């Protein structure tokens, strides 16, 4: 897929995210929009997967450790053909498969139930380790947030992946610099974060997380790296694409009203 095509899909996914959240009346726009380009690059370019055979044993695995941003993944999976797009509008409603955080049993197209921050990278390590142990060549991808890197378990996972030689594991950190209560630097800084991952023996890259050429290059570099796991630190903007949400912690966990949603969609469709 070409870069302009990927950009067009990302834009559609952002629109879908806004529409879903407006219908739901709750949810997390900021972090969903900041990881949209990463999720798009994974599902529409990088990952080996078959929407017509979701349980294909050799598929690449994807774990969304920052589970509250699952609307971006639902939108991507629907666009990829896993299930009808209309269903995304049932987000967070009783009896819907579109749970507020991913639920693997109600909705089998996500690889792992997440929503308690700090745990997803360990699960991804397990999937990558099982691949190695089982002689499979699938790759495992995991998107983590910056705030969740404050959790100790992230660093337990970080220590284990190189130890197990997991060159089939690639993690992407959505570094939007904002968490629920404010700026990451004010609450509990991660810096120097690249040095931390490097010190834990990861192959470490830093990119603009909204540049498709940069994302694709980094994903390819990760695949070609054969000495342990890769961490791509992605500099992103929380609320990316909607001017009144960008870089504002207030939009971490609040759905847009119908009117705000229309403004956001208008901007995404005509503005960018």
């Amino acid at each position, binding site marked *: 897929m070409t870069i302009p095509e990927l950009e067009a899909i990302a834009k559609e996914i952002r629109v879908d995210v806004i529409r879903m959240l407006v219908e739901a009346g709750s949810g997390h726009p900021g972090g969903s929009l900041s990881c949209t380009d990463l999720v798009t690059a994974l599902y529409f370019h990088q990952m080996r997967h078959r929407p017509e055979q979701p349980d294909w044993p050799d598929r690449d695995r994807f774990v969304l450790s920052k589970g509250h941003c699952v609307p971006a993944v639902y939108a991507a999976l629907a666009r990829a053909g896993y299930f009808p797009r209309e269903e995304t509008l049932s987000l967070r409603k009783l009896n819907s498969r579109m749970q507020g955080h991913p639920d693997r*049993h109600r909705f089998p197209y996500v690889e792992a139930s997440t929503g308690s921050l700090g745990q997803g990278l360990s699960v991804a390590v397990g999937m990558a380790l099982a691949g190695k142990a089982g002689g499979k060549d699938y790759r495992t991808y995991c998107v983590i947030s910056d705030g969740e890197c404050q959790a100790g378990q992230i660093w337990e996972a970080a220590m284990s992946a190189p130890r197990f030689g997991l060159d089939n594991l690639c993690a992407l950190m959505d570094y939007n610099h904002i968490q629920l209560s404010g700026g990451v630097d004010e609450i509990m800084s991660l810096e120097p974060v690249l040095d931390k991952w490097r010190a834990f023996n990861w192959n470490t890259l830093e990119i603009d997380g909204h540049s498709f050429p940069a994302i694709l290059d980094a994903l390819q570099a990760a695949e070609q790296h054969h000495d342990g796991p890769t961490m791509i630190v992605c500099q992103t903007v929380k609320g990316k694409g909607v001017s009144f949400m960008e870089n504002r912690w207030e939009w971490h966990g609040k759905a847009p009203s119908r009117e705000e949603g229309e403004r956001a969609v208008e901007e995404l469709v005509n503005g960018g």
Partner: protein
Amino acid sequence: MSATATRVTFGETVCRLADTNTDIVVLDADLRKSTMTDEFSRKHPERFFDVGIAEGNMVGVGAGMALAGKIPFICSFACFVVGRFEQIRMAVAYNRANVKIVGTHAGIGIGEDGYSQMATEDVGLMRTLPNMAVVQPADAVETRGAVEYIAQHDGPVFLRLTRQKVADINDEGYEFRFGKAVVLREGADVSLLGTGAVMENILNAADLLAAQGISAQVVNVHTLKPIDTEFIESIASSHGKIVTVEDHGIHGGLGSAVSETVAELGRGRVRRVGVTEFAESGDTDGLYGKYGLSAEHISVAAMELMD
């Protein structure tokens, strides 16, 4: 009847108590706007510590501060803070550290966020720990009284609070008495024992039962540990029919605490109304309907005891 989220009353009360009790400190894990410690963070910034999304560390740091003489209230969603069970077991309970563990967003009543943010096992876990008291207030005045009590209680406490608004069930002059069940309505045929967010549904269930000619006593059990054994024994020995209701799993919570007492006494029968599955996203009423916590479900459970 007005309604308040018990987390809101907690936030106001801890802030006010800290004006005079300078040993009180508050720790939070990137949820101050949800646990309602935001006001405290602005009014007492030198006594507020946000550890980031690191609840395990928060438990340990809270224990250390308590062992050094402070009275830490450590706050997060109940599922996340109680999720650090082994840290609580070791650093708080075993040390008998004077830590007040505040778990907001209890139960499936939180609604749209879904199971990952719903605590339905927390009371069970906390009840297993020696030294740990467990308190779940049901409305605003009771929360105020409970927080005032807890601040001067010597030892660890788990305080369980709601995200959603809950209706006032007590009068303004109500006094919180630790460990004592509160009879809200008298009744001779069956006792409906509840805790926390479900009290309004229980009162409605008592009305439904009254329409069937059944006289149901309604009891609010705000202290889950130590449970009011004396009270439970008294009703088990009289009419002997008890329904427990809670927005928590049926394992380990109020239903278990009451059943343990009744079983050891060897008199009385219990029906437990509570959550039995992983719940899901939805609105509170819809969830209470689907997962068996509506007034109708409660009244049916009571009828089943009426043979």
